[in-house]
C-alpha cells in the first residue's frame, strides 16, 4: 500500500502546491539546512518550549521535535476543509445543546437514547442549564487525515480542552525566523492572529450585560503537560493565567485574588477537565478546581469555555453518529467524511473485527493521546493476541477502523529526507460567529511506517501552509 505523498505524485513529480517551495529548496545548500535545523533545536530549547511527559520521572521535560519541511495545502482544498469544519462544529454544538435540553435527536430516534444518556461522559448536572449563546465547544480541535487526492477524513473531534495550538504558532514563528525569504516568494496565509481571534471569541460569550468582560485562563499548573501552552496563550491574549487557588466564589460570583483585593471574573477559558473543576460538584479530591464554581456557572454568572459536559459529543462511541447530527441539525450532507467504524458492542461488527485484527486499528472508546490502541499491521502476533483478550473482556470499550493509509510528507530523519505519515488538527472557534485561522497543527509520526502522531508517543510537528489564491 503506497501512501499519498503531499509533495510528490506517484511518478515522482512535484505537486503544484509544492512547486515554488521545491524550486526554492533546490537553491539552498545542504549545509545551510543542516545548520538551520540545529538552530531551530537550540532556539526551542532556550525558549523552553517543552512538554512534560506523564509516567516518566516527575518533572521530565522533553522537546517536541520540529521539522523544517512545511506541510502545504492548496487554497481550494482548504476552502472545502473549512466549510466542512464549520458545518461539523455547528452540528456538534447544536447536538450538545439538544442533549442537555429537549433531546429532539433522541426523540426522533436518529441516535439511540441509551448510547447518550447512559454514557459516562453525559453530565446530568448540565440538563436544563443555559449557557451563553448556546455554545458548548468554544474551541474545537478536529483531527483530519488524508488518504488520497481530495480525500480527507475526520479521525476524531476534540471538544474538551484540545491542545497544541501554541505549537502551530511557534512553528510558524520559527519558520519565519529561519527562512524569511520563502515568505516573500510565496503567498502563505497568516496564522499569527489566532490569539486575537480566541480572545474576541471568548469575550463574545460573556454573560449578557457585561460591558468589558474579564477573561482568564485556568490552568492545572506548571506540572501539566500543556502548561507551556497555557502560559503562552494567556500572555498572547494579555489575560491572567490563573490556577484554582487564585479564584474563589462568593454569592455565586467568581472572583480572583489580586494584590488590590478581589476582582470579578466573567469568562474562564479553562484547561482543566470537568472532573477537576469544582470539588463541591465533581471530584471531591480535586485540589486544582474552585469550590462553588459549578453553582456560579449554573446560575449564569460566569462562562466556562469549553462548557461542562462536551465530552458526550467527542466520545468515540458518539463519533459514528456525527454525520447523522449534521443531517439532523443542518439539513445538509456532511462535507467531511467519517472514517468507517465498527462498534465492538455489536455482535456482527465484533465478529468481523476479531477476524481481521491484523488489518485494523482498534481504539478505546474513552482513550486519548494514542494510549491504549492497537495498530494491527505494525503489531506482533503476541500484541494482537493480548489485545484480543482485552476486547473480549469489555467489547463495549472499543471501536475499530480500517488502517487508513495516512498521507506522508517529506521529513528530515537521521539519514536525510524521507516520507513520514502526518495528520492535521485545525482549531475551530465558536462564539457569536465561527472562526479559524487557515491550516492548523500538522503532526508527524517520526518513526518509519508509524501512524501514531501523538507527541506523547514520539511524534513531531511541522508548520502548515495554506496557500492564498
Amino acid at each position, binding site marked *: 500500500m503506497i501512501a499519498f505523498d503531499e509533495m510528490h505524485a506517484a511518478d515522482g513529480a512535484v505537486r503544484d502546491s509544492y512547486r515554488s517551495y521545491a524550486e526554492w529548496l533546490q537553491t539552498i545548500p545542504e549545509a545551510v539546512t543542516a545548520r538551520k535545523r540545529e538552530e531551530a533545536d537550540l532556539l526551542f530549547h*532556550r*525558549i*523552553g518550549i517543552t512538554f512534560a511527559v506523564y509516567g516518566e520521572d516527575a518533572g521530565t521535560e522533553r522537546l517536541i521535535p520540529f521539522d523544517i519541511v512545511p506541510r502545504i495545502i492548496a487554497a481550494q482544498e482548504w476552502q472545502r476543509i473549512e466549510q466542512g469544519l464549520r458545518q461539523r462544529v455547528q452540528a456538534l454544538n447544536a447536538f450538545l445543546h439538544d442533549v442537555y435540553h429537549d433531546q429532539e435527536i433522541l426523540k426522533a430516534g436518529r441516535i439511540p437514547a441509551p448510547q447518550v444518556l447512559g454514557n459516562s461522559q453525559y453530565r446530568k448536572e448540565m440538563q436544563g442549564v443555559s449557557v451563553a449563546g448556546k455554545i458548548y465547544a468554544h474551541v474545537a480541535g478536529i483531527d483530519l487525515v488524508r488518504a488520497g487526492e481530495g480525500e480527507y477524513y475526520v479521525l476524531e473531534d476534540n471538544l474538551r480542552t484540545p491542545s497544541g495550538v501554541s505549537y502551530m504558532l511557534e512553528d510558524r514563528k520559527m519558520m519565519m525566523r529561519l527562512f524569511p525569504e520563502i515568505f516573500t516568494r510565496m503567498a502563505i496565509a497568516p496564522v499569527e492572529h489566532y490569539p486575537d481571534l480566541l480572545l474576541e471569541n471568548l469575550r463574545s460569550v460573556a*454573560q449578557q*450585560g457585561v460591558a468589558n468582560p474579564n477573561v482568564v485562563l485556568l490552568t492545572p*499548573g*506548571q506540572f501539566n503537560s500543556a502548561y507551556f501552552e497555557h*502560559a*503562552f496563550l*494567556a*500572555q498572547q491574549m494579555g489575560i*491572567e*493565567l*490563573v*490556577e484554582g*487557588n*487564585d479564584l*474563589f*466564589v*462568593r*454569592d*455565586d*460570583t467568581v472572583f*480572583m*485574588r*489580586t*494584590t*488590590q*483585593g*478581589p476582582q*470579578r471574573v466573567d469568562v474562564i477559558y479553562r484547561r482543566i477537565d470537568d472532573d477537576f473543576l469544582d470539588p463541591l460538584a465533581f471530584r471531591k479530591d480535586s485540589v486544582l478546581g474552585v469550590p*462553588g464554581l459549578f*453553582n456560579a456557572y*449554573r*446560575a*449564569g*454568572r460566569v462562562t466556562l469555555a469549553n462548557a461542562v459536559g462536551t465530552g458526550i459529543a467527542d466520545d468515540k462511541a458518539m463519533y459514528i453518529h456525527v454525520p447523522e447530527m449534521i443531517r439532523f441539525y443542518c439539513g445538509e450532507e456532511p462535507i467531511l467524511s467519517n472514517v468507517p467504524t465498527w462498534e465492538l458492542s455489536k455482535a456482527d461488527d465484533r465478529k468481523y473485527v476479531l477476524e481481521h485484527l491484523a488489518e485494523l486499528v482498534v481504539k478505546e472508546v474513552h482513550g486519548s493521546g494514542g494510549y491504549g490502541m492497537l495498530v494491527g499491521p505494525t503489531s506482533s502476533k503476541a500484541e494482537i493476541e493480548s489485545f484480543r483478550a482485552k476486547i473480549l473482556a469489555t467489547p463495549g470499550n472499543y471501536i475499530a477502523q480500517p488502517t487508513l493509509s495516512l498521507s506522508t510528507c517529506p521529513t528530515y530523519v537521521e539519514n536525510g529526507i524521507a516520507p513520514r505519515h502526518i495528520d492535521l488538527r485545525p482549531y475551530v472557534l465558536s462564539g457569536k460567529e465561527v472562526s479559524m485561522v487557515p491550516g492548523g497543527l500538522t503532526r508527524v509520526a517520526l518513526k518509519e511506517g508509524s501512524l501514531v502522531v501523538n507527541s506523547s508517543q514520539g511524534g513531531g510537528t511541522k508548520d502548515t501552509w495554506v496557500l492564498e489564491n
Partner: protein
Amino acid sequence: MLSSTADHLYWMARSMERAENTARMLDVTYRLSLLKQTVAEPHHEWRAMLSISGLHEDFEARYDEPSAENVMHFMAQDEKNPGSIYNSISSARENARAIRGAITSEMWEALNHTWLEMRKIHDKGIADDGVSPFFEWVKARSHLSRGIAHGTLLRDDTFRFLRLGTFLERADNTARILDVKYHILLPSLSDVGGAADYYHWGALLRSVSSFESYRKVYRDLITPTRVAELLILRPDMPRSLTACMNEVNRLVQEINGPRSSELVRRSGLLSGELRYGSIDGIFARGLHEYLSDFLERIYELGDLINTTYFWSTDELPAAMFSSLPAAAPSPTMTSSSQMMA
C-alpha cells in the same frame, strides 16, 4: 495583579538575591580561612557562618565537621539544604516558570539558562574549576537577571514586586554578613588599624563589593566602626541597610492597596530610624544586639508583605467587597449561605 503572580515575582527575586548573597558569604569566609588563624578553634569561621544562617542543626545532622569543603558543599550544592545556592537558583527558576507570561522572555531565558548551567556545575562539583570562579559565576548570573529586569520590564507592579523581593533579601543578607564577620573579628578589635584589620575587614568589604567605595568615602584606614557605618547607614551604598530599606519603603508606598497601611507604616519607621541613626548610638547599644533586632523586624516585614498582598480567602474581610460593582441579580437562586461555608 494576581496575588499568586506577585508572590512568585517576589520569591523569584528573593531566591536569586539569596543565591548571590550566599555566594558572597561563602567567598568571604573562604578568603578569611586562607588567612592565618586568629583563634585557636579550628573551623571557627565556618561554624560561625552556619550558626548565623540558622542552618547549623541541619548541617550537623548530615556532616561530620564544619570543614571548608563540607560547609561549601552544604551551602553551595546540597540538594537537601533548602538554602543552598543550587536550591535558590532552582527556586528562582521555578517561580519564573510559574509566571513566564508575566515577565519578559529575555528574563525567563536568562534564568532558565542559569538553571541549566547550575545543573551541569552540580554534576561536576563546584570545585571542579576552583570555588572562586563558581562564586563569580553566581554573582554574574544574578547581576544579569537584575540587569535584564531593569532593562526590559515595564515599570509597573511586576517590576515593583521583583525589587521588593531583592531589597528585603539583600537587607537581610547584609545584616547577616556583618553580624557573622563582626562575631569572628571581635577579638582583634583591640588591634585597631593593624595589618590583620586590613585583611579581615578588607575581605568583608570585598565580599559586598564595597572595598573601593570604602576607599573613596573615607580615604583612611579600615576600621570596624567605619565598615559598620558604611554598610548600615550610608544611603548611597547600594547594599547598605539604609539603602535597602529606603527602596523597600518607596516600593510599598508605590504598590499600595486597600490593606497596606500597616506595612507602609512599619517600613517607614524602620527606614526613618536608619536615616536618622548614628553609628555611635548603634555601638553603644551593641552591634550584635542591633543587628539581631533589625533581622527580626525584616522578618516581620516579610510576614506583613505576605498578608497584605498574597492574602488568602480565609482571612477575607467583608470590607474588601464593599468597593466592588454590584453583581447582576442571579437568574436562579442558590443558597448563598451554603456557598460561604
